[in-house]
């Protein structure tokens, strides 16, 4: 059983009130919700808010899984820390922040090292092979130091959690990669890696292809690798890949299962973006790719959208006059019976017009989303008042 943020086992009392949650309700029937998008668009916050909205919409046990080592999810949820062990978010705390959930909401952060180790243990034909791989320095470095290893571990952890069936819905906050496609391609890449002929050559022994790799064709490559890496490392690499190849069948089978899960009608992708050019273009590209991969796009969440008031025609006219009319300050002095200087009048007008310029840009971007047809588009406004992290999250959950 998981503990709450304070380390206590939470009460099992059920709340009776159900918050109306549009997107939360629509996604509540899914097993897996994957949030994708560029870095800096508020993906982690939206993932946490979606988990909240789903738990508010239905009596579900919901897990929000973050891959981000920057502890953003813990910050967003207003709790001290989240680790690999799921932490239950106390209902009382959520209620105080303004939302009543009928289900359970838990959060966990991927332990990348642990996910990799489990993968090796799962696919190794015997314990000796697993031990040998786990002790290999090359394996240890790959799994805890390098960028690309996040995606492999994330997709594996997702599958494992789903397979265990402990949660009704798992919301995944994908790695902070600018290219979210890495996440989708991770299973294939891992299969390619383990099954590649290159590794057969490097392993220098009988391979799964049934031929001895240390042959005429491999010799120049090995000479090159020896010159590059040195004999000692080459031996380590060779040992590592020889063992790794024993895992091939398991990893290939798992990749097929993962793709089945990602394409399943019980899975949904939610693309999160802002309306700025860079993240928006990437979101459009990603939506197109999801279609190509035949993976179900369920919604787009557009974060930090300026409120409609900044496109108000009357407001624009009034602001323009305040900025451009040199006689307006004098007129206001007469009308308001108080001295009005030009600066505050110009400031009020210019402040509005700046936001109007952005709002126009945003409206142009929003109109482009029609190309994705029936996909629901949820706009989360840019809020202009100060609230705590958790209250802010609740407000976003309500907007969803």
């Amino acid at each position, binding site marked *: 059983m998981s503990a709450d943020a304070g380390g206590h086992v939470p009460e099992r009392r059920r709340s009776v009130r159900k918050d109306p949650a549009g997107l939360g309700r629509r996604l509540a029937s899914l097993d897996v919700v994957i949030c994708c998008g560029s*870095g*800096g668009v*508020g993906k982690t*916050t939206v993932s946490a808010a979606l988990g909240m909205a789903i738990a508010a919409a239905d009596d579900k046990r919901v897990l929000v899984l973050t891959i*981000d*080592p*920057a*502890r*953003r999810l813990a*910050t967003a949820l207003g709790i001290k820390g989240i680790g690999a062990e799921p932490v239950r978010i106390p209902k009382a705390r959520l209620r105080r922040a303004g939302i009543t959930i009928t289900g359970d909401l838990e959060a966990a952060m991927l332990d990348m090292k642990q996910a990799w180790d489990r993968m090796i243990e799962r696919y190794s034909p015997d314990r000796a092979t697993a031990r040998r791989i786990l002790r290999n*320095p*090359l394996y240890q*470095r*790959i799994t805890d*130091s*390098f*960028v*690309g*290893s996040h995606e492999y571990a994330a997709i594996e952890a997702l599958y494992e959690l789903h397979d265990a069936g402990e949660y009704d819905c798992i919301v995944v906050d994908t790695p*902070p990669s*600018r*290219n979210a496609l890495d996440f989708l391609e991770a299973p294939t*890449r891992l299969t*390619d*890696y383990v099954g590649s*002929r*290159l590794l057969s050559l490097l392993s220098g022994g009988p391979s799964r292809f049934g031929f001895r790799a240390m042959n005429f064709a491999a010799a120049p490559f090995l000479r*090159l690798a020896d*010159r*590059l*890496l*040195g*004999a*000692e*490392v080459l031996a380590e690499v060779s040992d590592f890949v020889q063992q790794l190849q024993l895992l091939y069948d398991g990893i290939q089978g798992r990749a097929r299962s993962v793709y089945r899960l990602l394409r399943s009608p019980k899975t949904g992708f939610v693309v999160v973006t802002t309306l700025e050019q860079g993240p928006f273009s990437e979101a459009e590209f990603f939506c197109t790719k999801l279609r190509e991969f035949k993976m179900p796009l369920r919604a787009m969440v557009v974060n930090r959208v300026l*409120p409609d*008031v*900044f496109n*108000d025609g*009357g*407001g624009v*006219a*009034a*602001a*323009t*006059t*305040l900025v451009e009319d040199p006689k307006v300050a004098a*007129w206001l002095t007469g009308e308001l019976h*108080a001295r009005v200087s030009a*600066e505050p*009048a110009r*400031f*009020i*007008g210019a*402040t509005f017009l*700046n*936001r109007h310029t952005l709002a126009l840009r945003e409206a142009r971007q929003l109109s482009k989303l029609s190309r994705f047809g029936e996909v629901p588009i949820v706009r989360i406004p*840019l*809020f*202009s008042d100060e609230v705590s992290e958790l209250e802010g999250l609740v407000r976003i959950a309500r907007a969803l």
Partner: protein
Amino acid sequence: MTAALALLGARSGKRVLAIDVDAKGDLAAALGSPPAGFAPRVVQHDLSVLELRTDESFQEYLNIYFKVPRLTRLTPLARVFDFIATGVPGPRDMLVVGKIAYEERRKEPASRSPVWDLILVDCAAGGQAESHLAAPKAMLTLVRGGLIRAQVEWIDALIRDPVRTTVVLCALPEEMPVIEAIELHERLRAGSGVTVDMCVLNRAVDEPVTAAHRRLMSALVDPEHVDAVAQRLGGSPAPLEAGIDLQAHLFDTTARYMRQLRSRLPMPVVPVPFIVDRTGLTTTRAVADALSSRLA
């Protein structure tokens, strides 16, 4: 921000190379150029852009050091190289850092002087930049001999040399980017040993809403005057309150995060204002001007 710093470098007479690690074309676009590609492309006077592609880095590496001919993407060996460069954790990070280090070492064939005076690298998300910068150190624990060991050693020395390499952190005045910048600084110091010299708080809102602004706003929407004001201004002043509220909120937020960054980072934190009325190269120029005035 990378584009603005590159413009400032070129304006000061340096030969600048700006490298886009993600190869998405954002950096070239910010400098008013179409996507640059793997070879440096001149986009402004004394300013070139290069878009880093790790598969091409790998081929270039093999070509320079081992005379392996460059291969078309369709050959099986090219696919293997592509896979090593882009799919295997480790080589990918090293190829990013290695290509940058290679450009730092490049000399003019005739004069033997460095091709670049300043190289600016637009990194991906913070976590990835950290992995790239830590890659040489990680590789050194793995590779204990061979040609790569020697190459990784000089790349590691380049990264750790505070005279030649520094990191500029960039944050937005929002909670998570600020926390991330602070944590990234801590991890960089502990991990790669790279020097961090400056933090830029981009999109800072630095014009406060004063009592005079508030008084005037209240008077404009006062029921006693609002109709006459609306008629004179050509539209209702009521929506303008939203602009003032948002400005006040963003100013307060900026101030709070400036304080947080300044208390947690042992380096100058430089605010750069949010420039909303321009796009593309004109925005970059405006950011460069703002940065220049604040650094002066």
